[in-house]
């Protein structure tokens, strides 16, 4: 497996120049922390939701190139979207990442799923630049790096929905 499968140019670009880096005043913004106990990576997502829209979003924390660039790309993709669109993006992204995660967690049925099925769950959603992170599934240990910020965002949206 070539290193370039993992570190695509656009990933390195987001890593070197992260988008939407910073903090939002909280409150009013919602502040959610995510944590990868395996490597100590931390991400903090600040979220402004107005009606059914994610009006602003900032990312703080520290981590490896994969977790940082994934968070940066996520922020760019989600900002300005509706809650429903954001959730669809999360599902699509996690779907793309899930193959090997399932395999590692030991779901043999999913182990052999071809890459073609990746986004089958969310056919409407265009992942765009985020597809650059697809190479991560070949490096199972790194999948949790890529999904950290997405899980954190999801937690934020869930909390927003129930409060």
């Amino acid at each position, binding site marked *: 497996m070539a290193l370039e499968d993992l570190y695509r140019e656009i990933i390195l670009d987001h890593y070197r120049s992260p988008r939407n880096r910073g903090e939002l005043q909280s409150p009013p913004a919602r502040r959610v922390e995510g944590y990868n*106990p*395996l490597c100590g990576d931390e991400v903090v997502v600040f979220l402004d939701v107005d009606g059914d829209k994610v009006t602003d979003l900032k990312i703080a924390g520290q981590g490896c190139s994969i977790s940082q660039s994934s968070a940066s790309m996520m922020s760019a993709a989600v900002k300005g979207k509706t809650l429903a669109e954001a959730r669809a993006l999360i599902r699509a992204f996690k779907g793309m990442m899930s193959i090997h995660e399932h395999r590692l*967690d*030991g779901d*043999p049925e999913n182990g052999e799923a071809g890459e073609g099925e990746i986004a089958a769950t969310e056919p409407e959603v265009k992942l765009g630049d985020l597809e650059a992170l697809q190479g991560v599934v070949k*490096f199972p*240990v790194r999948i949790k790096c890529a999904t950290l910020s997405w899980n954190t965002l999801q937690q934020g949206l869930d909390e927003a929905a129930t409060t």
Partner: protein
Amino acid sequence: MALDTAMVKKDFPILHQHTGERPLVFLDSAASSQKPQSVLDAMQNYYETTHANVHRGVYAIAERATAMFEEARNKAARFIGAPATREVLFTKNVTEGINLVANAWGRANLRAGDSVLLTEIEHHANLVPWLMLKEQLGIELRYIPVGDDGQLDLSDLDRLLDGVKLVGVTALSNVLGTIPPVRRIADAAHAAGALCLADGAQYSPHMTTDVVELGVDFFGFTAHKMLGPTGIGVMWGREELLESMPPFLGGGEMIRDVRPDGFTPNELPWKFEAGTPPIAEAVGLGAAIDYLEALGMEQVRRHEVELTTYALTTLAERHGDDLTIYGPAEASQRGGVLSFAYKGIHPHDISQVLDQAGVCVRAGHHCAKPLMRRLGVGATARASFYVYNDEADVDALSEALTNTSDFFF
């Protein structure tokens, strides 16, 4: 016979390479089975090409080692019909697995005066952990009695279950060969509000295992009795139980975070796996499962019933009343483990003389002292069969018994 034992024997190096003078007639698989070449190769190959500590390693061989280790967990899960792989915990043997349940579930759920129901045919592995809780927590232990036919006497089950929090039962007795109706016991336990743990140490090597059909809440087995290596066992538990239980052993791998004043446990299954796990052993267990599944567990069981039938018949024909075989009389109702008494000769002496003919049988209490007392003996001799045994092995046993008699009388 359905199983081609001549072929199978070829797969087991020890049957050809041991250093004794006579062919090895190995009839002690209930204590620990031999290993096929494929299991030894899998472990050797793992060490020669891939070894690294599992989880967290980013480099290639560490990732591959992790994948192999978790693949073994998948195989174990499939082998016992576990609904989810995360319910499959690796332990060092089934004994540790039962201690895990007694400690993690028991300490969190049992109070002084609570009862645990066991049976008179349990192995010490499913007695002592509960006896320790009796000492430490003041719980009460009860026992389902065994009848003279070698079957559990369930006539009083409902009364025995009153106030019981957990029932622990062997799925196959390592002394009598008894195969208790685990499903029925588990259903009765659940109806009484109790959980059910089955000790599958002698069951999974010989029978198709389906933990869902068995209806139990916890099920354990041990690799070295099913063609796998020493040093690894499996404890399966229902997910919501495992989720709700506190961890058992503490250390690396089983944590999510550690602070000077506390820690957060990891998710399943790793929450219950402290420290570096038996990695090569998991790979070996995976290969043992592959080997058994290639033979087919139905075939394995059929072979055993046939061989046990042959043994019960020919031994009775030749030795008549000189030989007492304990446990159920019908081969189809029992495992291929024959505990016996012969002409009043002490089991130690039987085993010693048989060994001169290359025939390996165990002599002793088989880690089932309460059952020995129930049978009114200090010890028995025990012959047990597995996939590499055939009628010639039974004949060798029978012949050697006659020689033992000649020797002592």
